[in-house]
């Protein structure tokens, strides 16, 4: 009896916690509302299953608890019931998987008109690179990293001369424009994580990874590192500022290009 009541209370408590929880996702600041939607679909389906299964169990514990003279039913299997349950489960799973795959397709398909931004992780700070007037990022090589060339740009590559290099500063993004975020690391794994954007991806030394977003809300957002990268992991912070085009251009003007950087170092 008591056991059945406690099981019911666990269900009621869980649902109440879910509904009343002040801890919920941050307000979205990118185009990935589809991710949030898929998450909500998943919450509903799994929530219903959770409540149904545990309540059924609680009811059995109450209804069929041992009493003098009770005899359990001997029924090794029930084909029909088993196939019904299998079918219904498959349906529920499909209802989550289908939107999931559609959105994943969007997630991995970068729009044609996205501008490229590069983010480079290193223990324990973020650096950024934006294409210059030519709209192209120059090539890079970790072995070329030096004090004057913190991101390891290929000095011989024309396309890289006008690239804007921001070492350890903040990143600004214009609102409403899709960006393809290219990710690189010069030492260990890191992960560029802004909860409000939803999207994230590891940065892996030796390769270039990516994700894409369209910022949809102006503001200043915390950047965290989401992949363990040593003792400074929790301190590897940064900020992203999403702003209107005009403000963005004004900010961009003030940044140094790779050419200016090397020139000032000479």
């Amino acid at each position, binding site marked *: 009896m008591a056991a059945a009541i406690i099981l019911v209370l666990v269900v009621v408590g869980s649902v109440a916690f879910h509904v009343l929880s002040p801890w919920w996702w941050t307000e979205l600041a990118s185009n990935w509302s589809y*991710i949030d939607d898929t998450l909500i679909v998943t919450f509903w*389906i799994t929530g219903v299953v959770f409540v149904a*299964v545990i309540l059924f169990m609680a009811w059995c514990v109450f209804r069929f608890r041992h009493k003098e003279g009770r005899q*359990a039913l001997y029924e090794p299997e029930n084909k029909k019931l088993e196939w019904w349950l*299998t079918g219904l489960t498959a349906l529920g799973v499909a209802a989550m998987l289908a939107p999931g795959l559609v959105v994943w397709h969007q997630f991995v398909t970068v729009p044609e008109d996205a501008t490229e931004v590069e983010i480079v992780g290193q223990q324990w700070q973020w650096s950024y690179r934006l294409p210059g007037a030519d709209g192209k990022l120059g090539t890079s090589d*970790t072995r070329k990293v030096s004090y004057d060339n913190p991101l390891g740009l290929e000095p011989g590559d024309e396309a890289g001369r006008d690239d804007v290099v921001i070492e350890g500063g903040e990143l600004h993004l214009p609102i409403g424009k899709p960006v393809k975020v290219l990710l690189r690391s010069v*030492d260990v794994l890191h992960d560029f994580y802004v909860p409000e954007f939803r999207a994230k991806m590891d940065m892996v030394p030796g390769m270039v990874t990516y994700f894409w977003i369209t910022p949809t809300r102006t503001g200043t957002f915390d950047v965290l590192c989401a992949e363990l990268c040593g003792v400074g992991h929790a301190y590897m912070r940064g900020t992203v500022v999403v702003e209107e085009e005009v403000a963005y251009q004004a900010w961009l003007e003030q940044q140094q290009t790779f050419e200016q950087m090397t020139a000032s170092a000479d």
Partner: protein
Amino acid sequence: MVERSLGPADIVPPFEVEDVELYHPKSWLTKYVFSQDAKIIAIQYSLTALAIGLVALVLSWLVRLQLGFPDYFTFIDATLYYQFITMHGMIMVIYLLTALFLGGFGNYLIPLMIGARDMVFPYVNMLSYWIYLLAVLVLAASFFTPGGPTGAGWTLYPPQAILAGTPGQESGIVLMLVSLILFIIGFTMGGLNYVVTVLQARARGMTLMRMPLTIWGIFTATVMALLAFPALFVGAVMMLFDKTLGTSFFMPAIVQGGEVMAYGGGSPILFQHLFWFFGHPEVYIVALPAFGIVSDLISTHARRNIFGYRMMVWAIVFIGALSFVVWAHHMYVSGMNPSFGFFFAVTTLIIAVPTAIKVYNWVLTLWRGDIHLTTPMLFALGFIVTFVSGGLTGLFLGNAVVDVPLSDTMFVVAHFHMVMGVAPILVIFGAIYHWYPKMTGRMLGETMGKVHFWTTFLGTYAIFFPMHYLGLLGVPRRYHELGVTSFIPDSAHTLNAFISIAAFIVGAAQILFLFNLVWSWFRGRPAGGNPWRATTLEWQTPETPPAHGNWGKELPVVYRWAYDYSVPGAKLDFVPQNQPTLSGG
């Protein structure tokens, strides 16, 4: 056809292998220390696993101290914190759960439940334990080496794991890798043994489709472990070479502290593939024995046949096979080619179907049962709640795109603790309450058991259920302090403190359990041979605890499946597997 009870006329097949003479110990040392008796080896495995598991439990308190009260325990700095979580995670998964389920329960239950005298290779079985012990000692030694144990996270991702900036890169990581290599060698010896024993040494009449689900779970998990551990083995060897010989299997060109290192050309992602090719099946290596055991607990204590036995067997086998093609769901945001996401999301969600069937069949076994709420039964019920909760959040993380915002947050920590931390641990407790009488001849204290159950079950639920919501909010995992972060409100810190307090209460309840284990050994109520009135063979031994060789002169003969509870027309509400007729005799 389910081979339930073919009746007494059923012809008992002749021996395929003659009954063999076992090695008989000649001294105290060969009887209790260098023992070749699977039951003694099982107890050795279990005690060692519990001992090192206790270390992991204490480490989790230290972690929770820091997370709940970041301003008070200043001695826990980032270095110590990372060492604590790494050792906690690795010990719990490998040295506690894997060792306890396979080395502990596997050794104890396989020969007894299938009606064999012992494992088929008793000597190798003994070696398996001693190598496991060595692995545990090497691991424990890393607490005392210069630089301390590794703090690379239990996933040990390179390049970070072997580079400066990560705690324990001096020698802790080397000891960790060596210990894992030893563990795998020891396990392989034991594992081959379990598989061959199940396939070759079953009693006459014990067909595969009459085996208790416990044996199906342990058997399938062992086969999986034999296939999965080699991936970890090569990963560990390669990383050891990278660390000690300067090879570059996992090491691309790297710049650290302004210096270009000598490494180049390797792939960090390759390690992740190897790790998770082992790591995902590992989840089921822990889960399948738990599935099997819990099926038998529910059936016995609800006095009802397990519902849908054949489905249950096939679900176990199907889950085992499928879990080798889902590993990269741990790597959706690892930077691997994102197109893989489609494949792995599909395979992962397909596994949900056989898994759900198992859950339905457990609760349907309760339906129209005669439920005795004994301590083992309570733990089984607790397992279902926890496992359902953890299994359902797996559908979030398996669905590639939903995983993107949640990966590397506390949501993941909450999910895997529910599904592979707490759920299997509850089964382990239930199993100990269930089989302790067979191992010692005495019952475990029932009241203490119930207090232990309710505190552990409700306590762990209070720890891990709210934790999902911290993850949803965006709180990252593996952060020893959150500092000032704009999106994390003060209330999140309050919740963290609450979770920590729940963790300490749960921890304290385990002391009661340990006390119960020791107290009942001397003072427990005498159990008799079959206190739960169960059908399976281990309860039908001539002596309790069973003697060396298990069965006295005559090996048992099996006439029916393991689930003849409440059979209409039978005299008692259970018919042992070795009983030819319903009425006994």
